[in-house]
C-alpha cells in the first residue's frame, strides 16, 4: 500500500478510470499540458493523449454544456471547475440541464458527469475562490454531492463518482490536498456514495462533520478525551444524499450531537442534518443539537480567514455546552 496525499489519490483515481473505460474524458481549464492549477491531472494528458484529457476555453458554462453534450454521445465526462467559487458561471448547465436530463427525457437520457472542483478556506486564495457553496447543491434535486476528507476516501469516492450514472459534484478541500498523507491501496476500489464513516468511536456525543472539518473535529475529540469526554466523529463523506442511518444510530448511542461545517450557518448542511435528526431521533436527545459554523457573511478576504473559519476550540466549546446543557 502506498502513502499518498489526497491530490495524488485523486490523480490515481482518474488514471484508473481513464485506463478502465475509454468513454471517460477529463477536461477543464488548464487540465491538459499544465496538469491543472493544483496538478490534479498531472501526467494524464501525456499518458492518455489529447483526445481523452484536454484543455477547454476559459468558460465554465461552456464546460458544463460541453459535458452534457458529450454525455449524450455516451461519454463519461469528468469536468473540472477550476475553483468552486466560479460555479455560479456553470449553475445553469448543472442545476437546470444535467440535473433535469432524466426527467425531461422521461428517463431516456442521463448525464453521468463528474464535476470536480477545489473549494474551502484556510489557504489564502484571492477572493471568490474558497467559498463553501456545497449547500446550494443540497437544494438542487438531481445531483449528488461528495466531499472526501482523506486520501483513501478521495480515491474510492472519485472512482464511484465517475462510475455513477447521475451527475456527481465532487468537492476537494484545498487545505487537504497536500496537508497529510494516508494509506491508499493500489489499483481500483470504490467507496460507496451516500455512506458516512465513523472515524472515531465515542459514547458521549456525536460530532457530525465533513471535509476539512473532520481533521478539526478529530483534534477537538482528542482534547475532549483528555477531559474525559468521549466524542464519536462521523465523516459524512456524501452530503447529498445524507446517510441518516449512521447519524441516527450514533445519536441513539450518545444522545447528544454537534454538527460542524466550514460553511456559513444559514440553511446549510448542518441545518439539514439537524432537521433530519429532529424527524428521526429527537426523543433520543438529552440536549439541543449544537452547530459550529462560519458566520453568515460572504467569505472574507484572506487576512480575516483564520478567525472566520471554525476551529478546534469552537468545536470543544460547543461540545461542552451540549454536554453541560
Amino acid at each position, binding site marked *: 500500500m502506498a502513502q499518498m496525499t489526497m491530490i495524488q489519490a485523486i490523480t490515481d483515481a482518474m488514471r484508473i478510470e481513464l485506463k478502465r473505460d475509454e468513454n471517460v474524458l477529463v477536461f477543464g481549464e488548464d487540465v491538459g499540458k499544465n496538469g491543472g492549477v493544483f496538478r490534479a491531472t498531472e501526467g494524464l494528458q501525456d499518458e492518455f493523449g489529447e483526445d481523452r484529457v484536454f484543455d477547454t476555453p476559459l*468558460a465554465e458554462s461552456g464546460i458544463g454544456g460541453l459535458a452534457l453534450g458529450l454525455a449524450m454521445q455516451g461519454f463519461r465526462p469528468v469536468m473540472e471547475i477550476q475553483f468552486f467559487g466560479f460555479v455560479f458561471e456553470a449553475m445553469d448547465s448543472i442545476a437546470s440541464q444535467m440535473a433535469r436530463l432524466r426527467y425531461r427525457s422521461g428517463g431516456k437520457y442521463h448525464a453521468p458527469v463528474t464535476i470536480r472542483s477545489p473549494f474551502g478556506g484556510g489557504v489564502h486564495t484571492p477572493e471568490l475562490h474558497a467559498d463553501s457553496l456545497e449547500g446550494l447543491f443540497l437544494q438542487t434535486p438531481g445531483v449528488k454531492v461528495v466531499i472526501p476528507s482523506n486520501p483513501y476516501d478521495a480515491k474510492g469516492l472519485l472512482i464511484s463518482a465517475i462510475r455513477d450514472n447521475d451527475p456527481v459534484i465532487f468537492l476537494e478541500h484545498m487545505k487537504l490536498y497536500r496537508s497529510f498523507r494516508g494509506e491508499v491501496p493500489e489499483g481500483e476500489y470504490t467507496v460507496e456514495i451516500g455512506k458516512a464513516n465513523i472515524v472515531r468511536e465515542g459514547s458521549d456525543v456525536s460530532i457530525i462533520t465533513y471535509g476539512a472539518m473532520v481533521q478539526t473535529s478529530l483534534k477537538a475529540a482528542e482534547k475532549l478525551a483528555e477531559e474525559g469526554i468521549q466524542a464519536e466523529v462521523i465523516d459524512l463523506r456524501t452530503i447529498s444524499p*445524507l446517510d441518516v442511518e449512521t447519524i441516527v444510530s450514533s445519536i441513539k448511542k450518545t444522545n447528544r450531537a454537534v454538527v460542524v461545517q466550514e460553511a456559513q450557518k444559514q440553511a446549510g448542511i448542518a441545518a439539514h442534518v439537524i432537521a433530519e435528526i429532529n424527524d428521526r431521533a429527537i426523543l433520543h436527545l438529552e440536549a439541543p443539537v449544537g452547530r459550529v459554523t462560519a458566520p453568515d457573511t460572504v467569505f472574507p478576504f484572506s487576512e480575516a480567514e483564520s478567525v472566520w473559519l471554525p476551529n478546534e476550540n469552537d468545536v470543544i466549546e460547543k461540545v461542552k455546552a451540549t454536554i453541560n446543557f
Partner: protein
Amino acid sequence: MVTKKLEPIESRFETFQILNPEGEVVNKDAVPDLSDEQLKELMRRMVYTRIWDQRALSLNRQGRLGFYAPTAGQEASMLASHFAMEKEDWLLPSYRDIPQLVFHGVPLVKAFLYSRGHFKGGQYEGVNALMPQIIIAAQCTQTAGVALGLKKRGKKNVAFTYFGDGATSQGDFYEGLNFAGTYNAPAVFISQNNRFAISVPVEKQTAAKTLAQKAVAAGIRGVQVDGMDPLAVYVVTKEARERAIAGEGPTLIETLTYRYGPHTTAGDDPTRYRSDELTNEWEQKDPLIRFRKYLEGRNLWSKEEEEATVEQAKEDIKAALKEADQTPKQKVTDLIKIMFEKLPYNLQEQFDEYSKKESK
C-alpha cells in the same frame, strides 16, 4: 483613427437569396439539385406545419393544449434547414422548433404531450434529438459537446441547433460557437432572426448589423440568408453540413424571418410592440406563397396536392390528440422514480408517501 470601422465586416454579410417573394429565381447558379419529389415533400412539410400551427392555436384557446410557441412565418427557416439534415444527425431545438423535431422522427403525439406538460412528451425513441430548450442559448454549449462527441466517435454526422435572435445576446451562444470552433467540431448553429425577442426588436438587442457577423469573433463561418426563401435556406444549411462533415468547422446561419403570431400562447400581445404594417410587409414575403408559386411554375404543385396535405395534417392532428387524451396522466411518483438511477433514501420515503397520496 487607429480603430477601424465596422462596415468592412458587415458588408461581407449580404443576405443570400435564390427565390424572390414572387417565387422567381434570382440566383440561377445557386438553385439546389433537389428532385421534383424532394421539392414537393418540402412544400408538403411547410403546408402541414402551417395547418398544425393554426390548429394548435385554436386547441390552446379551447384549453386542449398548453404551452405553444407559434411557427407561422418561420416554415422555410425551420423546415428547409432541417431538410438538409440526415436522420442520424443530432437536433438540439428551442421550444419553438417542434416542427423540426417532428420531421426528425418524434411522433406528433409527443409534441402535444410536451405542450400539455407531460413527461412522456420528451421521451424520444430512436430519434437523435434533445428536448426543446427553454433556457435561451443553453443548447449552444450542448451542441458543441454533441458535435465534439460525434467527432470523437468518428461519425459522419452533424449537430444542428436552433435558437432565436435574442439568444445571440447570451454568453452561452458565444461560448457554444467558440467551443465548437476551438475543437473544429461538426456543428451548425441556426439563429432564426424573427426580429423580436418577445417584444424587444433586434435593433435593441445588439449594435451588430447582422447576427451572422457574430461568427467572426469565434473564428467560424457565418452567413445571413433570406429565411422566407426555402431554397436559399436549404442551400446554406446543406453547405454548412457538408463543410462540417469535411472537417472544415462549424457555421453560424442567420435566417431573416418573422413570426406572424404571438411569442407564445401565454398571453403575449404583439400589437404592444410591433405594427400591423410591419407584419403585413413580412406576410408579403411568405415562404409558402413564394414556394407555391415556384412549384406551380414548374407544374409540381396543384390545388389537389395542397388540399390533400391539409387533410393529412388535420387527420394526423386528430389522431395524435386522441392518443394524447388516452395517455394516463403523469403522476408525482413517475417523476420521483426517474430522478436518479437508484433512489436515495429521501426520494424512497417520498415515493411511498406519494404512492399513498395518489392512490386516494
